[in-house]
């Protein structure tokens, strides 16, 4: 299932809702996410993971990459609403050390 994303802006910042499979095969799709998010120059970014079906190490790497890009401009990134199977993977790789993760 292809990775798609939608952007919405409200008072708290920019929300990026990801849907589909965030895996190795979707590296190219995430390049557009990085471009769209950095172009918006938000103060804060919330990545809504609730629509994800799969997440693998390539997807994890992309999230770290996005975080590193945003940190250069002082933008805080938060991961939100991971489904249980995604939450388990985030725990395994200890992503709480890098990200704020909200249920």
């Amino acid at each position, binding site marked *: 299932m292809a990775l798609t994303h939608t952007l919405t802006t409200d008072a708290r910042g920019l929300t990026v809702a990801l849907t589909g*499979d965030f895996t190795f095969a979707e*590296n190219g799709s995430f*390049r557009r996410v990085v471009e769209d998010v950095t172009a918006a120059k938000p103060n804060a970014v919330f990545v809504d993971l609730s629509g994800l079906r799969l997440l*693998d*190490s390539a997807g994890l790497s992309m999230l770290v990459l996005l975080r*590193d890009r945003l940190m250069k401009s002082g933008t805080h990134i938060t991961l939100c609403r991971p489904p249980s*199977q995604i939450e388990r993977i985030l725990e*395994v*790789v200890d*992503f709480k050390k890098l990200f704020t993760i909200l249920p």
Partner: protein
Amino acid sequence: MNDTPTPLPNDLSGTALEEALAQATGLVIDPAVAVGKPPYVRANGVRVVLSSRRALDPSVALGLARWATTRHRLVPPTELVATLIREAAVNATVHGNLGLPGLQGFGGDLDAYLSAMDEALACPDRATRPVLFAWRSGGRLLTLHVRDGGNGFASPLPPAVGPTVSGNGLRLIRSIADRTRHSQGGRCLSVGFRCDA
């Protein structure tokens, strides 16, 4: 808990083999993309050898995971076993057959990484190298072997460190499997799961 496995004959071939493989794993192996020795499915194991591109297909990982979790009493659920197999397939293909480092090896430059990937996949010599997947059952341990056709690694198992842009695949594999081992100069990853049957 899973049902007791049904024994399979050991001498399947041709259509019978294809049907048994499809029934056991859900995998339909297209001869055009299956390379090397023919696949087999037995009571105590499954083996398929695929091209790099086919090995990256998520349905391969899911089929092999389903075989393991429905025929053996594994603790991890099918989705987690499939995640492990996908990680192993990506490592075997990208680092093994294509000979590329991880994203960190490109300084975190996603464009450079993806360009190198496209270039490597366009190279027939590297893109058609095989990836072998084999489940073997022995006693209370079910082992998956994933072997690539690359040049191997001098130090294939670096120590696990905190979360970074690279190395998360191995971290996932280690956390899901009960045992992890590299052999054949880094070309073969073997992961073991304790099971009851």
